């Protein structure tokens, strides 16, 4: 059965590691929805979050292939009920008198923020789960989206479990 999986990957913080991980996905023909990478609390490690749709079999193959990469230190399929998942959106929308109030209302209800204001354009910043971001974008389409970008998700397990402690075990 196809569903979305989110995987946390702890990798060595060295040049080329993103290329190795993303190259593996391309080479093996795995499609991914998004991939984000950033530093961690430790200088030695970066953390990659990968989301993809697929069945159990695809998930197993992705995990085992990731584990084979020399720079990959830990891989965990995150249980989405036990995981905080967030994404950031920056969206530039037309600033017109007739729609300005509606936009402001939406921004307030979605707990978004206006981070730039000019005579012709507004930039909204929004953080949340992907579904919330999708809904906000859908709404903003009515007001003339000029451009937007989203970060892709980052995810971290609730409670005291950490990828790094798994690695150190």
């Amino acid at each position, binding site marked *: 059965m196809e569903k979305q999986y989110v995987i946390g990957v702890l990798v060595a913080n060295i040049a080329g590691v993103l290329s190795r991980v993303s190259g593996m996905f391309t080479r093996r023909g795995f499609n991914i929805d998004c991939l984000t990478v950033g530093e961690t609390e430790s200088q030695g490690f970066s953390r990659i979050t990968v989301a993809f749709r697929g069945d159990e*079999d695809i998930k*197993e193959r992705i995990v085992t292939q990731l584990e084979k990469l020399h720079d990959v230190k830990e891989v965990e399929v995150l249980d989405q009920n036990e995981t905080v998942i967030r994404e950031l959106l920056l969206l530039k929308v037309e600033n017109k008198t007739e729609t300005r109030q509606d936009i402001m209302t939406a921004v307030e209800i979605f707990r978004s923020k206006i981070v730039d204001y000019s005579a012709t354009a507004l930039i909204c910043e929004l953080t949340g789960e992907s579904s919330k971001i999708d809904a906000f974008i859908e709404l903003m389409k009515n007001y003339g989206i000029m451009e937007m970008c989203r970060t892709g998700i980052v995810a971290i397990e609730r409670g005291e479990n950490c990828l790094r402690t798994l690695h150190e075990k």
Partner: protein
Amino acid sequence: MRKTGMIFVSSESEPGGKGRFISQANCGETAENRNSSEVKTMEISGAQIAAEILREQGTDTVFGYPGGQVTDLFDALYGQDDIRLILTAHEQGAAHAADGYARASGRVGVVLATSGPGATNLITGIAAAYLDSVPVVAITGNVPCSQIGKDSFQEVDIVGVSMPVTKHNFIVKDVGELADTLREAFRIAKSGRPGPVLVDIPQDVQKAVCTYEPEECVSAEPLRLASNHRLRWAADMIQHAKRPYIYFGGGIISADASEELTAFAAKIDAPMGCSLMGLSAVPSSHPRFLGMQGMHGHYASTLAEDEADLLLAFGVRFSDRATGEQSRFSEHFSVIHIDIDGAELNKNVTAKLTVRGDIKDALRRLTALVPQQMHPEWTARIAELRAEEARRTSRSHNFMAGGGYLTHYEIIDAVSAAAEPDAVIVTDVGQHQMWTAQRYPLKQPRTFLTSGGLGAMGYGMGAAIGAFAATGKRCVLFTGDGSFGMNLNELATAVSFGANLVVIIMNNGVLGMVRQWQKLFFDGRYAGTTLNRKTDFVKVAEAFGAEGMRAQNPDELQNAVCAAFSKRGVFVIDCRMNPDEPVLPMRPPGGSVDDMITELEP
């Protein structure tokens, strides 16, 4: 230049002396050679550090080709008695030679090439080693760090290029990290499922001076062992099976598990077949061994596999050439798959039970867990299949014989009768490869070298040179006129290096394997496969300083074989064959056992 006062020496004796069956963790260098209290640090250049690391890791042979950005590395190897440098004709030949060295000996093969074209020429050789899980360390020079990224002369991002075909790779930009990176490269190459590792060393790093402190040869990482629970489960499945069939691959050779395998087969009373990569793990004459299965596998082996109710897959990866249509492959039987590489489990074929772990240990424990099994009906059925195979083989042989050409049966039988029992058999890629795989009577592990996964024509000459360098034993290369044409320049290497090598060219004037497909699936439209060359291979051999003879009939063949095997040196025999002699049986690509072709008019 080598510093005086070094306290360690390579204990590697003459090639092939010991070490044929050296385990992965073994470097052929003994601990007694090192006395830690005497370890001295020294200030030497990056290139000298690289040479010291090779010595530290027990490397006795480096295959390579010089160039602008590796001159320092070559200089560091100059005049070193304990590291032999074998200069090939082309970097591809050097890469295949390092591969052949590793396959024939079990040790890590080392190849050295310059930046840019030198490095890209290695790629086919590295890919061949990658797909067949061969431990190789490839060292390349690169332009100085300050010139990287500027499309400098002979600059190529070889780390980027080689990423998909290496187990791992490195570029070293700080001389302080060079020694440990090279050690890590050796460790990765020989740990777990072996594979090639590339280390790119920019020229300024080769020149930079740094402190070097000798260390022990690195050991392979401890192998993961199969879980008890899963082995008990496997034992239970085996006891319920009526028609077990063992399908083993190159993992048995890498793990040095031949004895464990045959003991296990006897305990569970099962026949054994193998993939192309598994050949030589057990002697071809072993009573339980049915030969290679798969697309061009032995009739009895492929049919027995299909009739089995339990397939025991050991150290294999279920390549499409072995399985045919993968979704239909395991319709009739359950699969137990044991492999050291977890990513291979359930990758191509879904197994009922997967076990991740060292196959040598797993087989030993599994043999102990299973009570003696007896399958008289199954054994009788196997005997029937063998008898049928013998009938079919002799029919095909008679069909081809006496047609004014030599047949592959005559050629292989004449060569195997003359060759030493421990000769290393090497092939190129094509029909001759399958014929040799099917018919040559192999006697001991690591005596059959072939490019299985990549299927690289041109593999053979380099690999044979590497195998000779590793073993000192005579090597026999079976090649085709197509494959030989790709890298025959390495005859120069073989002659100047003094290799003991017999090259058998199965010369049918065509690219026979593709021609066979064209005959079957393209209505005989032989596009691009008719060579029609005027090349005289006997003169080619002589021009390179080797000897050569041509053979068109069994008498001429006998004379040529006698001449070749009665002396040392490089000897080429050009054997004339019918362009339409097919490789049979053949299971068409994507087909199953029901689609197997066992007879074909020439």
